[in-house]
């Protein structure tokens, strides 16, 4: 547990981190330029979500940088994955695995483009927050919807 305490400290509250803290971390709406102490307020949700926040922070933190060479490498990887996709499609023996494989490949490609080409990995974390929120709501939402369409009338 040392690395946990080392990286994320022990005395943060989720609310403070989400809304009051100045910095450039994940899941953060940026702060305005000048800060001053907030008056004492009641926070009925203060504190007890701390662990969840720490897990989120750990899952999502990361550093890195990119330049033209990186871009070419990423493009090469993208191209290779596309080739593998098409090859996989043409091999009849692999066809039973087609759907999951294609989904995984497209998610990898999706993530590569978003993270490196769209600079989400290096940019302000708020952009990630916005985009990932939309993706999560969308994916959850349409999964439920597809389930409902597929299992219409289940149980009657």
């Amino acid at each position, binding site marked *: 547990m040392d690395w946990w305490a080392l990286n994320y400290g022990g005395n943060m509250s989720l*609310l403070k981190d*989400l*809304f*009051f803290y100045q910095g450039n971390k994940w899941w953060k*709406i*940026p*702060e*305005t*330029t*000048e*800060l*001053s102490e*907030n*008056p004492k*307020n*009641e*926070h*009925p*949700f203060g504190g007890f979500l701390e662990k969840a926040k720490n897990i989120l922070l750990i899952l999502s933190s990361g550093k890195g940088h990119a330049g033209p060479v990186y871009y070419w490498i990423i493009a090469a990887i993208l191209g290779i994955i596309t080739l593998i996709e098409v090859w996989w499609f043409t091999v009849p023996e692999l066809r039973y695995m087609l759907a999951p494989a294609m989904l995984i490949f497209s998610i990898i490609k999706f993530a590569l483009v978003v993270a490196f080409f769209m600079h989400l990995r290096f940019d302000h974390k*708020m952009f990630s927050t916005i985009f990932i929120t*939309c993706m999560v*709501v*969308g994916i*959850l*939402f349409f999964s*439920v*919807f597809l389930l*409902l*369409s597929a*299992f*219409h*009338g*289940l*149980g*009657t």
Partner: protein
Amino acid sequence: MSTISKPKQFQLPRIFPRPKSHKGLWYWLATVDHKKIGTMYGLVAFFWFLVGGIEALLIRLQLGQAESSILSPEVYNQMFTMHGTTMVFLVVMPLSAAFFNWIVPLQIGARDVAFPRLNALSLWVFIFGSILMNISWFVGGAPNGGWFGYPPNSSLGFNPGHGITYWVMGLNILGVASIAAGLNFIVTIINMRAPGMHMMRMPVFTWMTLITSVLIVLALPILAVAGIQLTADRIYGTNFFNSEAGGDPIFWQHIFWLFGHPEVYILILPAMGIVSEVLPTFSRKPLFGYTAIVFAGLVIGFLGWFVWSHHMFTVGLGPAANTAFTVTTMLIAIPTGVKIFNWISTLWGGSIKLNTSMLFSIGFIAMFTIGGLSGVTHAASPSDTQQQDTYYVVAHFHYVLFGGSIFAIFSGIYYWWPKFTGWLLDEKLGKISFILMFIGFNLQFGPMHWVGLNGMPRRIYTYAEDMGWEGSNLAATIGGFIIAVSVLVFLANVILSKRNKQNSGGDPWDARTLEWSISSPPPHYNFVEIPKVNNIDDWWYRKYPELLEGNNQNFKKQKIEVEDSSNVDESKIHLPDLSYYPLIIGIGLTIAGLGVMYTYALVAIGLIMVFWGSIGWSTEPVNEDSKEHH
């Protein structure tokens, strides 16, 4: 797009000169000032409120007695379709948008929204979209498929003619306006807050605007897709909802309510925001449980995405799906309850000033509670199969959307009117209009609970005498006319109060948030100096600094005057200049929409206008005189 001005910046040759004067029609057409745009939103939406109200009165007249024949069944179907569509898309949403426009930049201490021209675009697209939808009355019949437009009844095979096409086209265009406005307010609220205004120092109205905008931005595209699919079905003969080609009518219901349920929260969250501003101001104490109210709003905004099938308990999704949606629907009652209890606690122990605005807000809590409780009876899906599509549902959502949204909007009108105009509305007439509206509203929609449980289905243009529904319907009709009288009293109030202007000053209510720290009506640049925010209700604590030191006993109001804008060197404040390109794009979009129904020539003209507008927009400098800064 390229907006940074350079001396050799390419500019589209201008057909019209860029307006300069801050007066006259040309100014109103080209304005990018959020306050002017808010005013126009308000006026246009209020016009549609009157239109939708007249439609409602005609419906009530028809149903006032058994087997009446004031409206033909065809016209009746058009009436209730347009009443629903008008009230949702042309009244409550734009009236909320009017408040967003007027209030949000003032509350967060900004000079304008983040994208003033985009804001003007939203306004014009909304205005022309609403006109487009209502053109249908004059060209062969208004839409008649209900505001939910279920196919196959709304598909070409069962509903020939242009009515439904106008409806979907109008919704698509209005969707563009809403999404543009939603994007604008998200960016504005995140990015334009005054220094020191943390997210958790924002006024609740601004918070609810943010949540509403997020819902708009995520939900309206779904409606756009449904609209595109239905348009394609009707015009190009595709098969999305064509049951003969294997298309699934249930599918439309899913997409529509995928959009439709977040839409319900789009309609009610701004109202909750307004009430959360009015209650603490007139109770003269802080909002009870600010954080809880904000979080309850967030939770409602999120849960609202996963309850849509409670509109579909009777389509046969099966007990598994019904159980899941019953549970998620009931969960929504919890954050809603938290809000109601917090509002009551805000009243509790306060020093309540019962003026018109406050009465409407208290009326909101009282009526919204009834709507919420009847909502729980709907969530119980076995008994909902008895209530679905009866007047019980009509009663329920009018208690939420009229007793909720409209009451709160009137509360907001009376509350912010002095900020809009600089003069006060008459309290006596205001209270009369409240009492009339309260009685009329309950008289109209209260008996609908009973008549619905007594088996009266929705959307019927007539009913037989032996059904036992006449008494309740007559009461409802009388109630409807009482509401109409109260709206007339409100209009009279506006006219009479304007005649003997009672100057309000900048801060007539001894209010709490930043918009009251400047003069009324605010100058076009809003704040002489961008304020520095130290507290939640910053303006309040500037007036009562002792409160911050924990002094709860002997309060003294510090003498702080609202900002004086008479001696301001305006040359130092740079605001975007007027632009008529948003108007051109708005007109172009509407023409293109009309063309989709009639001829491609119009589509081409519309698209050329849109293209011209966008190029002009992106090449014109934001302000003409800002060139030397770059």
